[in-house]
């Protein structure tokens, strides 16, 4: 049974699209793109607390795509599409690498991994987003953050949703 609140959020409008194909460089070009998305969300009324989560998710997904997906190959791009609304953020990030299996990444929160210097990006993405899903081969991630639904419904599925209306 779908509740009224869920129905209202599912149809919460996404009124702005920001998209870019980014070079595979960690030198900083992608950071300006993220700032553009944050600026658009600010115009839509998003508050600092929620912008922080969006910035974290975009920073970690795009840098993962550059570093691990494309392995910083200058001939490859990271394709990002963001759909923005007053209460909803949706993004799809696709790299040109071979993909990966998210479930194979060790849980950074376990005691034995707590001191490992890496492996926290996925945990942070999941922690700050409402929904996270991957395509079959793992080179495309779909993010969604819905305000006023919290992050408790975070789920991790193996399908990539088409862009929402």
């Amino acid at each position, binding site marked *: 049974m779908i509740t009224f609140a869920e129905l209202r959020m599912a149809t919460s409008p996404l009124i702005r699209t920001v998209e870019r194909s980014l070079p595979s460089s960690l030198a900083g070009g992608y950071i300006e793109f993220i700032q553009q998305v944050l600026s658009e969300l600010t115009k839509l009324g998003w508050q600092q*607390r929620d912008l922080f989560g969006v910035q*974290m998710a975009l920073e970690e997904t795009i840098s993962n795509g550059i570093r691990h997906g494309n392995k910083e190959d200058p001939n490859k791009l990271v394709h990002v599409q963001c759909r923005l609304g007053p209460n909803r953020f949706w993004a799809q990030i696709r790299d040109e690498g071979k993909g990966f299996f998210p479930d194979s990444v060790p849980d950074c*929160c376990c005691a034995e991994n*707590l001191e490992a210097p890496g492996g926290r990006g996925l945990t*942070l993405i999941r922690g700050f987003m409402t929904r996270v899903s991957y395509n079959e081969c793992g080179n495309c991630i779909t993010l969604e953050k819905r305000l006023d639904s919290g992050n408790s419904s975070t789920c991790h599925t193996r399908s990539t949703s088409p862009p929402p209306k």
Partner: protein
Amino acid sequence: MSKHRHITVNESANVSVIQFTDEKIIDSETIQELGQELFDLIEQEQRNKIVLNFSNVEFLSSAALGKLITFDKKAKKSKAELILTNISPEIYQVFIITNLDKLFQIKDSEADALAVL
């Protein structure tokens, strides 16, 4: 001219209080340089009581967390005491999500840290 680009160091009763100069710790060059400046505090300057004050920091990535973890390991190896303070609610959430609040000693303020060092 200061030898540090990404931190400022102040001495307070045998304790080194470190402030970050970057509001956002994101890009790989900054993180690499910042890491080295922090490591030098222990490896070159033999400081053994360190407070990292995050009051200037608005955002940091998981790569920056990685450097902090390596710094913590180096501190433990050298028997240096390390306390993190003045962490914003958003960044504190990062520590909670990743369970790093269990790894680091965190205090609300610099005064709280100085009181136990």
